[in-house]
């Protein structure tokens, strides 16, 4: 049983993968298909924009919390480099359109908030259900101490 519980994530991950593929196949069948290049292009755009946005957010947080004992040069220089490269790539990917980037950023914030809300709802409900479990009282907790006096009855 312990062995089975240790490997719980494998069947659960497989189930999630099957459901995700099933949902895509359903939309595929209903929509009549889509070019794989379109999907890849959108995913790459999202990747670059989110990478750049997160790097800038982390850069701002790092700038706000700098202190003299931190190894800040590598951290700040690295984050500046990552942000500049990602934003340059995003700028090129959106055809040098700031409006396109703004639109992508807004959709990214909207979708990530939705994901966070869904995760919060499910785990919030799970927590509420799990904390509501009633347990049978442990009989050992009801017993009183004898102060060390023990009598043993031997069955002959």
């Amino acid at each position, binding site marked *: 049983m312990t062995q089975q519980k240790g490997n719980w994530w494998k069947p659960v991950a497989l189930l999630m993968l099957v459901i995700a593929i099933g949902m895509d196949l359903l939309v595929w069948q209903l929509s009549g298909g889509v070019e794989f290049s379109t999907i890849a292009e959108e995913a790459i755009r999202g990747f670059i924009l989110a990478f750049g946005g997160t790097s800038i957010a982390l850069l701002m947080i790092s700038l706000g919390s700098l202190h003299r004992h931190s190894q800040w040069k590598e951290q700040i220089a690295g984050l500046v480099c990552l942000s500049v490269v990602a934003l340059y790539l995003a700028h090129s990917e959106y055809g040098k359109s700031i409006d396109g980037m703004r639109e992508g950023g807004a959709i990214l914030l909207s979708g990530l908030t939705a994901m966070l809300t869904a995760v919060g709802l499910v785990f919030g409900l799970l927590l*509420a259900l799990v904390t509501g479990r009633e347990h049978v009282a442990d009989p050992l907790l009801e017993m009183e101490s004898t102060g060390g006096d023990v009598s043993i009855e031997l069955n002959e």
Partner: protein
Amino acid sequence: MFEVSDPRIGFWLPLALLCLSIGFWITDRKDPRKKLALPGFFLSIALVVSFGITTRGEDGPETALLAVFLHMLVPVTCMAVGTLIATFSGPSPVGPLPRGLRPMGFFMAYFGLVWIAWMLISEPPSAIANGIGQTTWGAWVDAFLTILILISALAGAFCVMMGEERHKEALTLAGLTIAGGLMFYEIMHNGSQGMAASGWHSIHWSELMFLFGGLVGLISALIAFIALVYIAEKRAPDPDVVAPLTEEEKSVVEAVLRTNLNLMEGEE
């Protein structure tokens, strides 16, 4: 020149200011920057709110995003407060709320979800009915339903795998997966009140895949940040070697020790 209605000033700058405030907030409590965290936070919220009020009715992406957030605020708050009430009114020792509130907590959580479902079958407000507003709203709903189905299936399967009579928890989460699945099928097959099925298909293939890439990008950026911190700490020089005690310092230590030892002997 600097108008709040400009999205760079009224929306993106406050977001940067919010991140800076988080940075101030995690500084040491004696650091004077710590006192700037709350004013920075409230200033950024005030700027975003005034931007939303100033640009109300316009069709910019930031205005549409704020309209979606405003639209979802009540059901999401209902779900969040409901789950908190249900958790803290349970039989656990950390439940300070009366037990009678527990059904109300569950009711609020499910009511929030039903509210979102109702939004899909009712006429959307004008801010999210067309153009970029519709796309942003569609992306929110599609991402919410997809993650709801996947994560509740994960959590339900986890309950089953862990055993120990967790059937009620597993069944509730299975119900959530099925309800989410039905809503997903309905909008993809018949569309919703404000959008045809083809619009939802377009959102699924373009915006959801964009968000999937975005999620991977976000996680990659976090990993890159951890790698940067690791590199910086690894390159940090070893601390300076402390010079050994001088004869004078040794005599001071010895005197202190002798005094304390004599005191202890005196007490005995």
